[in-house]
C-alpha cells in the first residue's frame, strides 16, 4: 500500500470506532465498548507505524506526499479538497497521538468501568482521536479548521462528560467559548493569508509565501499570523486565553490525560510548527508567540506552586510546559519544541494517570490538603509519580531533561533577546521542580491519612455518599455522575499496563535526540522544515551539554528546595505563606485572570446584552416593528369584520348585487 493509503486508514480507524460504539450503545455490554475503542486506536497506531516505515522508504527530499479523495469546492480561486498531507511532521504527530491515545484508552477500560456512561465515553474518546488526526493530517486550511473545531467540540463534550455536575457543565461551556474565540482567530487569519495567496492548500501556500510576501514583516502577513496565534493560544491554553484549562479538570481523569495534557492542547504548537514558513516571513508575529509562551510558562508555574487541587497542579504544569513548546516553535527551535511535545505527552499522561489512581484511592477527593503518606499503600502509583515527576522536573536521564534543555539551549545560542527567554526557561524549570515535588511530597510522604491506612490494610476506601470534590454537593452514582466504584492502578491490570508503557517511554523517550550522540528526530523532521533559515543555527554539542548540566543542576536545586520546605522542615510552607501573604493571595487567585476577563469582556458583554434587551428588543422591535404591524392588521380586521354577518341570504344578495353592478359597468362602457 502507498504511504498515503496507510495514512487514510490511520484516520479511518477511530472514525469507524466511534460509529460502531455510538451506533451499538444498546447492544454493547460490559467492557465491549472499551475493547472496541482501544482496538480501533491500537489499529490506528499500528497503521501509523506502517505509514512511518513506508515514508522512510522514500528519498528524504520526497517525503512530502499529498492525497485527495474528493473536491469540496474548486472554482476560480478556491481549491478546497478532502486531501491529506503526509510529511514527517504529520507522521510524527500521528505516532504521538495514536500511541498515547492507545495507552489512555487501555487505562480507561478499567478506570471508567463502573461509570454508567461507559459506552458513551469511548464513543466520545474515539471521536476525539479522529478529530485530532484530521487536524494533523489536514492538507489544506479548510480541513485544518474543520479538525480544529471538531477537537474543540470533543473537548467540550468530554469536559462536560459528567453532565449532571453543574461545575462540569460550566467548565465545558467556558472551554467551548474560549476555544471558539480561537477558532474565529484561525479562520480570520486564514482569510488574511488566502487573500494574498489565492489558495487554501498548505503546500502551495508555503511555496507561494516568498513570492507573495517578498519583504519581511508584511503587514497583512503579520496580522494573519497574529490571528493564527490567537487560535493557537486558545487551543494551547496560553495567556490570556488559558483560563479554561484548569477548569477543564472537571472532566474524567483519562480525558485530562489525553486531551488536556498529551494531545489537544499541543495543537497550537503543531499549528505554529506547520505554519513555520509564514511565521519566518513575519518575525514580529513569531516574537509575540515567543513572548506569550515565555510569560505563560512563568505565570502557570507560579500558580502551580500554590494550587491545592492535585489535578489543577498538573494542569498548570501542562500550561507551563506548553509555554516552553510555543516559545520553542516560535523562535525556530522546531525539532526541539516537537521533541518536548512528545516527551511531555509521555510523562504528563503518566502523571495524570497516576493522579487518577491516587484520586481513586481517596474516593474521589482531589485536594492535596487531605492527602498524605500514600507511599507505602500505593507503591506502584508512587513509582509512576516519581518517574513522571522526575521527567517533568528535567532530571537526567529522563526524557524531559533532554527535551527541555534542547529548547533552552537553542534560545541561549540565538542570543540577544532570546537569551532573556532562556533565563525565563531556567526560572520556569526551577519552579517546575519545586511544584512537582511539592505535589509528590505532600501526597506520598508524611503522616498517612485515614484513606492511606485503610489501603495499607488491604481495603480500598469507599465513600457512601459521593460528593462533588469542588463544591461538596451530594451526588448519586447514576448516569451523568461518576460511577460507584473507584479503581487504583495497584488492582487494575489495564491501568498498570498503560502506566508502565508510558513510564518506559518517559524514561527512554529522550533517546530520540541526544546532543552529540544521535539526532534521529531532527533529521527525520528536516524535510518539513527544509525551507527554514533559522533551524540551521543549532548550538554546538559542547554548548548543548553545558546547557544540559545546568538544567540538571536547576532541577536538583528545585527538588532540594521542595525537600527542605515540605519534608525536612515541616511548617516552612505555612511560615512562607504568612510572610508573603499578598503574593500568596495573588497566586491563589490565579493572577486574577478570571476576574480580569470578567471585568473587561464578560461584564461589558452582559451590559450590552441587557441594553439590547431593554432598549432595542422591548422598545424598537417589540414596540415599533412587531407592535405596529399587529395594530395595523387588527384595525383592518375590525373594519372588514362587520361584512361577515353569517346570513347566507345576505351573502347571496351581495354576490348578485356585485355581479349586476359589474355587468352594468361593462354594458355602459361598451356602448
Amino acid at each position: 500500500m502507498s504511504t498515503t493509503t496507510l495514512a487514510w486508514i490511520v484516520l479511518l480507524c477511530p472514525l469507524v470506532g466511534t460509529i460502531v460504539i455510538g451506533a451499538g450503545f444498546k447492544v454493547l455490554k460490559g467492557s465491549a465498548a472499551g475493547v472496541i475503542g482501544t482496538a480501533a486506536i491500537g489499529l490506528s497506531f499500528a497503521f501509523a507505524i506502517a505509514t512511518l516505515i513506508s515514508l522512510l522508504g522514500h528519498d528524504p527530499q520526497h517525503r512530502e506526499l499529498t492525497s485527495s479523495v474528493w473536491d469540496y469546492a474548486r472554482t476560480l480561486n478556491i481549491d478546497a479538497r478532502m486531501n491529506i498531507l503526509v510529511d514527517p511532521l504529520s507522521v510524527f504527530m500521528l505516532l504521538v497521538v495514536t500511541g498515547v491515545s492507545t495507552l489512555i484508552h487501555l487505562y480507561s477500560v478499567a478506570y471508567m468501568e463502573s461509570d454508567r456512561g461507559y459506552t458513551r465515553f469511548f464513543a466520545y474518546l474515539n471521536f476525539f482521536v479522529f478529530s485530532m488526526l484530521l487536524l494533523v493530517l489536514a492538507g489544506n486550511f479548510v480541513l485544518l479548521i474543520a479538525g480544529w473545531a471538531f477537537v474543540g467540540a470533543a473537548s467540550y463534550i468530554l469536559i462536560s462528560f459528567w453532565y449532571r455536575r453543574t461545575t462540569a457543565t460550566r467548565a465545558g461551556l467556558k472551554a467551548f467559548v474560549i476555544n471558539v474565540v480561537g477558532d474565529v482567530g484561525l479562520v480570520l487569519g486564514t482569510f488574511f493569508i488566502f487573500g494574498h495567496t489565492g489558495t487554501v492548500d498548505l503546500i502551495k501556500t508555503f511555496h507561494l509565501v516568498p513570492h507573495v510576501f517578498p519583504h519581511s514583516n508584511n503587514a497583512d502577513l503579520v496580522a494573519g499570523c497574529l490571528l493564527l496565534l490567537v487560535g493557537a493560544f486558545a487551543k494551547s491554553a496560553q495567556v490570556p486565553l488559558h483560563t479554561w484549562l484548569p477548569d477543564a479538570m472537571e472532566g474524567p481523569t483519562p480525558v485530562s490525560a489525553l486531551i488536556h495534557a498529551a494531545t489537544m492542547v499541543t495543537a497550537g504548537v503543531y499549528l505554529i510548527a506547520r505554519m513555520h514558513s509564514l511565521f519566518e516571513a513575519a518575525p514580529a508575529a513569531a516574537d509575540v508567540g515567543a513572548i506569550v509562551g515565555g510569560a505563560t510558562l512563568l505565570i502557570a508555574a507560579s500558580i502551580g506552586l500554590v494550587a491545592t487541587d492535585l489535578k489543577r497542579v498538573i494542569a498548570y504544569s501542562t500550561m507551563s510546559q506548553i509555554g516552553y513548546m510555543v516559545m520553542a516553535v516560535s523562535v525556530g527551535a522546531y525539532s526541539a519544541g516537537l521533541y518536548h511535545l512528545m516527551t511531555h505527552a509521555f510523562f504528563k499522561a503518566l502523571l495524570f494517570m497516576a493522579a487518577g489512581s491516587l484520586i481513586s484511592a481517596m474516593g474521589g477527593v482531589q485536594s492535596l490538603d487531605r492527602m498524605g503518606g500514600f507511599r507505602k499503600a500505593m507503591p506502584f502509583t508512587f513509582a509512576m509519580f516519581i518517574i513522571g515527576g522526575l521527567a517533568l522536573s528535567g532530571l537526567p536521564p529522563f526524557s524531559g531533561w533532554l527535551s527541555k534543555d534542547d529548547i533552552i539551549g537553542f534560545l541561549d545560542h540565538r542570543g540577544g533577546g532570546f537569551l532573556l527567554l532562556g533565563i525565563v526557561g531556567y526560572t520556569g524549570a526551577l519552579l517546575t521542580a519545586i511544584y512537582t515535588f511539592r505535589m509528590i511530597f505532600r501526597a506520598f510522604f508524611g503522616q498517612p491519612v485515614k484513606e492511606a491506612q485503610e489501603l495499607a490494610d488491604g481495603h480500598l476506601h469507599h465513600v457512601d455518599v459521593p460528593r462533588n470534590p469542588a463544591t461538596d454537593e451530594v451526588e448519586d452514582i447514576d448516569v451523568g455522575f461518576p460511577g460507584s466504584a473507584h479503581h487504583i492502578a495497584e488492582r487494575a491490570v489495564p491501568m498498570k499496563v498503560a502506566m508502565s508503557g508510558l513510564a518506559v517511554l518517559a524514561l527512554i523517550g529522550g533517546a530520540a535526540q541526544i546532543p552529540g550522540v544521535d539526532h534521529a528526530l531532527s533529521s527525520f523532521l528536516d524535510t518539513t522544515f527544509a525551507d527554514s533559515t533559522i533551524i540551521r543555527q543549532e548550538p554546538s554539542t559542547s554548548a548543548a551539554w553545558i546547557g544540559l548540566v545546568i538544567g540538571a543542576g536547576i532541577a536538583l536545586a528545585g527538588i532540594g528546595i521542595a525537600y527542605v520546605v515540605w519534608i525536612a522542615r515541616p511548617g516552612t510552607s505555612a511560615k512562607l505563606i504568612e510572610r508573603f501573604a499578598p503574593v500568596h493571595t495573588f497566586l491563589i487567585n490565579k493572577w486574577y485572570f478570571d476576574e480580569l476577563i470578567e471585568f473587561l469582556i464578560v461584564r461589558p458583554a452582559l451590559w450590552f446584552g441587557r441594553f439590547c434587551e431593554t432598549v432595542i428588543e422591548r422598545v424598537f422591535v417589540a414596540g415599533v416593528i412587531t407592535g405596529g404591524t399587529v395594530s395595523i392588521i387588527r384595525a383592518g380586521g375590525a373594519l372588514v369584520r362587520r361584512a361577515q354577518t353569517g346570513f347566507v341570504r345576505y351573502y347571496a344578495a351581495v354576490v348578485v348585487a356585485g355581479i349586476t353592478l359589474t355587468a352594468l359597468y361593462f354594458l355602459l362602457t361598451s356602448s
Partner: protein
Amino acid sequence: MAIGWYLVVSALIFVIGAAGVLTRRNPLVILLCLELMLNAANLALVAFARLHGREDGQIFALIVLVVAACEVTVGLGLIVAMYRRGLPIDVDELNELNG
C-alpha cells in the same frame, strides 16, 4: 335566426331563481331556485350555440348539468344532516359563522 325570445325566457327564469334564493328561508327551496338559475344559464348557452352554429355551448351545457347534479347531492346531503341533528330548517337561523 333570432334568439331574442330564448334569451328573454332565460333571463326571466334566472331572475325568478335569484329572487327565490334571496327571499326564501327554506334551504330546500333555495336549492330548487339555484337549479332554476343554472338551467336559465343552460338555456342561454344552448341558444348561443345555435346562433353560432357550433356545438361548444351545448357541450358546456352538459357539463353544467353534471355540476348541478353534484351540487344537488351535496346540498341535499347537508339538508338531511341538518334534519337529522334536529337543527332548524331555516338558513337565517344558521348564522353562527360570522365575524
